[in-house]
């Protein structure tokens, strides 16, 4: 018998993650055994229940962590402390909302995902699958796996677990990106780009991990932190390793210069996935970054500062400037998300407890807004003619020009979207403002007032493109002629059969009375809004409420976060 001692496992703190991963595994079994007809209902229930369960578990752990400050689990591979819980709760909540958007079905019972993602676009097989109403329910387990990885990611205090969690969260996302029901080619392309770049960057990051290991002889953050304190002649390894590791994390958060994938992937991926990815990945990756910067590399804060500063400034500036010229809503939000990554980075630069609270809050605020915004985008559709010239709802109308006049035709939707945009822009009384304020305060407090200044200027510039959308929605007339439904790719989206009439649901009532000028309605406007089964609407409403509540009365949440915002080493 050798000296192997079975590690003590504190199961309790692991429950939130375990619930989600277990549900994911069960979800795979559901795919195997539950008949087609009931699969969606079962999956949806399972997914929602597990995410809610994770939230409950976090709540149950909360008071304990508040008292003790947190615990190591799995022999120090993971740590469940305040920030972990906050981030896990955020991710679970956002994933819950995303699930609703994932699940929503629109005209003809179609959700956002290809009926058979493996089928060749435009092939007979695909057509058959579509006609038979096949549905890709694998997305739910994939979502859960990704969520599980995301919940692990910010809890890691060990490079190995970090890497594994990174992959667990990334791989399902790569797949999810390629499953768009419409614009299949675009979607597949996005998936491939994301995958190749993602794999490339994780390889780079791994190399960095190897170098850090070489420097310190350990994979534990704490050990590395100790090693950085005492020079051992291998500092080259340390610096290069740290940079490469950070590169990987920067890629995940979409920071310049590792941002190139963001617009393409955000645009190509199915909109519910985009929302999920934009919100949750960022939350998780920032959590991990927080831990790396605070827990592993404080010894080289001096060297890191240069990098973080440069990246933060570049990210803010590039994200903002590039967003100015975008003509596609999803691309625009993608660039805006880059800019937001820069804002959060300013909070991380602060390197103090206030910074942690600020970053955590910002992530929550940003996430809620993002999920809501993309949920709304999923509702705005192109109007076209399907088979037999029957009017039908086509894919999402993501070109900005198609959003013109939406405020007139669908005021409630437009106002909600405006709310999200204002939150992105950081206008007071929205969640975004409080987040920005907290982050900038932390940055100034940490001596980085120049960063805050750049951030503020970038915000001002960013306001321009958010305002542009508002102008478009409210102050521009509805285009009379239907915009052609081409995707600009030369590949027509699979036409929608079935004569399901356009559904004006939640917003229909207002829409009917909101027209001030009597618009000549011989030709239907090219853009319409679908209500689906109401799941998206629910999610969006929750997001909107969160955005307002976090903006007007952020105090309880801020206090709660602040009460636990101490990173354990």
């Amino acid at each position, binding site marked *: *018998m*050798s000296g*192997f001692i*079975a*590690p003590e496992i504190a199961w309790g703190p692991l429950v939130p993650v375990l619930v989600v991963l277990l549900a994911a*595994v069960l979800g*795979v*079994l559901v*795919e*195997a*055994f539950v008949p087609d007809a009931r699969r969606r209902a079962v999956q949806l229930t399972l997914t929602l229940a597990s995410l809610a369960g994770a939230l409950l578990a976090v709540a149950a752990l909360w008071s304990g962590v508040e008292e003790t400050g947190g615990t190591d689990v799995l022999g120090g591979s993971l740590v469940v402390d305040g920030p972990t819980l906050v981030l896990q709760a955020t991710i679970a909540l956002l994933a819950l909302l995303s699930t609703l958007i994932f699940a929503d079905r629109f005209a003809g019972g179609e959700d956002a995902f290809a009926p058979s993602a*493996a089928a060749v676009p435009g092939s007979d097989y695909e057509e058959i699958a579509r006609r038979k109403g096949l549905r890709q329910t694998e997305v739910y387990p994939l979502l859960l796996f990704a969520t599980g990885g995301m919940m692990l990611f910010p809890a890691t205090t060990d490079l190995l677990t970090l890497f594994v969690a990174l992959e667990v969260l990334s791989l399902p996302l790569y797949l999810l990106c390629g499953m768009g029901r419409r614009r299949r080619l675009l979607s597949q392309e996005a998936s491939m780009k994301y995958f190749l770049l993602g794999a490339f960057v994780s390889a780079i990051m791994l190399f960095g991990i190897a170098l850090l290991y070489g420097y310190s002889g350990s994979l534990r953050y704490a050990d590395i932190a100790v090693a950085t304190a005492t020079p051992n002649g291998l500092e080259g390894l340390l610096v290069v390793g740290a940079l490469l590791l950070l590169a990987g994390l920067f890629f995940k958060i979409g920071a310049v210069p590792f941002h190139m994938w963001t617009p393409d992937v955000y645009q190509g991926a199915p909109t519910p996935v985009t929302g999920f990815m934009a919100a949750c990945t960022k939350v998780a990756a920032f959590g991990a970054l927080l831990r790396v910067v605070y827990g592993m590399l404080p010894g080289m804060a001096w060297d890191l500062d240069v990098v973080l500063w440069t990246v933060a400034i570049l990210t803010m500036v590039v994200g903002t400037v590039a967003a100015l010229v975008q003509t596609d809503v999803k691309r625009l939000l993608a660039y805006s998300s880059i800019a937001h990554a820069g804002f959060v980075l300013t909070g991380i630069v602060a390197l103090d407890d206030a910074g942690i609270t600020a970053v955590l809050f910002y992530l929550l605020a940003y996430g809620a807004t993002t999920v809501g915004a993309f949920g709304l985008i999923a509702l705005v559709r192109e109007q076209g003619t399907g088979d037999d010239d029957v009017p039908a709802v086509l894919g999402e109308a993501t070109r900005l020009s198609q959003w013109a006049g939406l405020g007139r035709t669908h005021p409630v939707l437009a106002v909600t979207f405006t709310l999200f945009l204002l939150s992105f822009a950081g206008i007071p009384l929205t969640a975004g403002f409080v987040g920005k304020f907290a982050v900038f305060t932390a940055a100034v407090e940490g001596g980085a007032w120049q960063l805050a200044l750049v951030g503020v200027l970038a915000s001002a510039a960013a306001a321009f493109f958010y305002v542009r959308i508002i102008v478009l929605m409210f102050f521009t007339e509805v285009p009379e002629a239907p915009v052609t439904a081409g995707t600009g790719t030369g590949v027509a989206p699979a036409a929608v059969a079935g004569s399901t009439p356009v559904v004006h649901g939640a917003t229909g009532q207002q829409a009917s009375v909101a027209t001030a000028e009597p618009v000549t309605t011989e030709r239907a406007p090219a853009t319409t809004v679908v209500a689906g089964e109401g799941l998206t609407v629910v999610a969006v409403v929750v997001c909107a409420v969160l955005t307002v509540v976090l903006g007007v009365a952020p105090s309880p949440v801020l206090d709660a976060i602040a009460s636990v915002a101490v990173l354990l080493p």
Partner: protein
Amino acid sequence: MSNPYVPLLVMIGIAAVLALGGVGASAILGPKRYNRAKLEAYECGIEPTPHAIGGGRFPIKYYLVAMTFIIFDIEVVFLYPWAVSFTELATFGLVSILVFLLVITVPFVYEWKRGGLEWD
């Protein structure tokens, strides 16, 4: 104890010489009477279409097999070290590996049920 891998190098060297030598010998010894038809690919006398490289297609199923294989290969890779130190790892290792097996089995069941293992 000397490095156990050095004899392996010796073995590889000899085997490589043999492998190279055989082909080389036949190249020297064999006659060389080429003609155009002889150098064409064998296709029962038909012009080969499409070219295997670049245009060659084989059923998607093979990819599926490859992917499934990779998953199980990993499983095996993890089983070996555990099996070797079965006694030392004791109950803890046992439970872990059983959970691991279970988790790996789930996608296998999924693939089976969804027809991933059918050849038609």
